[in-house]
């Protein structure tokens, strides 16, 4: 519905219609209306007897509702309330006793916690058993300590095997005049050994290094 347009002293003014007036009653009564709408409302209020009657009746009803007698609870109210609370509490206790132990009542996080605990204990035992295996089985701890305190065993270098008699004795001091007479034999392994690199056991080398470090 459009607002009525009137001209007052040559000035165009909008007037509120009855439908808009009815929609604005509560806003006016609650003072929740802007200045322009309030002016339009009051103008319509003055100009429309039916809307004025409606406005007055609604104001009256509002006051009447606010002054309605307060309804109180009965004297037995607290007694009945306490009984309800007690009955509810007893029912819950009874139900929990009837249900007894149930896996459903265990919260889900408890299962996860139990699994984690089991895993930790298992890993602990595994590590413990590995620690036992690494030590010499059946050796008393005192003996084990002494073994640990001893320097690491250094294995003897491999003995060079020299063939018997067939090969001339090396490194024998010979007179200068005879030295030239002795000629090295190419088949002589010992002679050849000087030229060849000595083959060493790598473990032996490590042990040598260990001993050197210690001393």
């Amino acid at each position, binding site marked *: 519905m459009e607002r009525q347009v009137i001209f007052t002293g040559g000035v165009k003014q909008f007037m509120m219609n009855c439908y808009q007036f*009815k*929609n604005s*009653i*509560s*806003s006016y009564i609650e003072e*929740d209306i802007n200045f322009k709408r309030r002016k339009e409302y009051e103008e319509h209020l003055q100009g429309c007897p039916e809307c004025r009657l*409606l406005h007055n*009746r*609604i104001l009256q*009803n*509002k006051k*009447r*509702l*606010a002054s*309605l*007698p*307060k*309804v*109180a*609870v*009965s004297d037995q*109210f*607290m007694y*009945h*309330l306490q009984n*309800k*609370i007690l009955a*509810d509490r007893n029912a819950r206790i009874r139900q929990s006793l009837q249900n007894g132990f149930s896996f459903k009542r265990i919260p889900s996080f408890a299962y996860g916690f139990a699994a984690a605990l089991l895993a930790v204990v298992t890993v602990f035992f595994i590590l413990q058993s590995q620690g036992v295996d690494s030590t010499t089985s059946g050796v008393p701890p005192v003996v084990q300590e002494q073994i640990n305190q001893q320097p690491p065993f250094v294995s003897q270098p491999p003995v060079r095997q020299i063939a018997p008699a067939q090969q001339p004795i090396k490194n024998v001091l010979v007179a200068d005049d005879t030295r030239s007479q002795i000629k090295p034999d190419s088949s002589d392994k010992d002679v050849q050994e000087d030229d060849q690199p000595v083959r060493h056991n790598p473990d032996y080398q490590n042990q040598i290094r260990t001993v050197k470090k210690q001393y």
Partner: protein
Amino acid sequence: MEDKYKITDEELIARFQAGDESAFEEIVHRYSGRLMNFAYRFLMDHEEAEDVVQDTFLKVYQNRYAYKEIAKFSTWIYTITGNLAKTILRKRRNRQLFFFSRLGPEEKDIEFPSTNKLPESSFEEKYDDKMVQRAIVKLPEQFRTAIILRDIQDLSYEEISNIIDAPLGTVKSRINRARLRLQEELESWKGK
């Protein structure tokens, strides 16, 4: 006595959550009247209204830890009462019965209002209170809740908006329409 009223509702429920049963008794003392008034105006049945209020406090007792200080305590407790009252209303609709023996204070010892126009007198004033109550009960559920909370319980628009879980504009619109409908009902009885 003064000390008790200095404690806010939120502090009381916090104490109750901490285990202080006397705080719960104080909550019952503060809200039993207000909630009874609201429930009765909504249902127009004293016994049912009292059941609703008792069930409200029972729910508060059972679910005390459900209250978080995000909203006002009054909003929370009014919401519980409103929901319980609506449940009763729906059950009543299914039964389609009305028990005259459970009428409230204004309704006892009266007859149904006649359609004749009543004279302007002090008798009409008392009579109008009862007519107003009957007219309220005839309103649709949404309008009834809004007008009771605003015009009888004198709650603010914001509180009503939180209780009925509707926007502020919707609340204002419902209150306005409820007042217009109430007036239409009264006019139909007065035989205008």
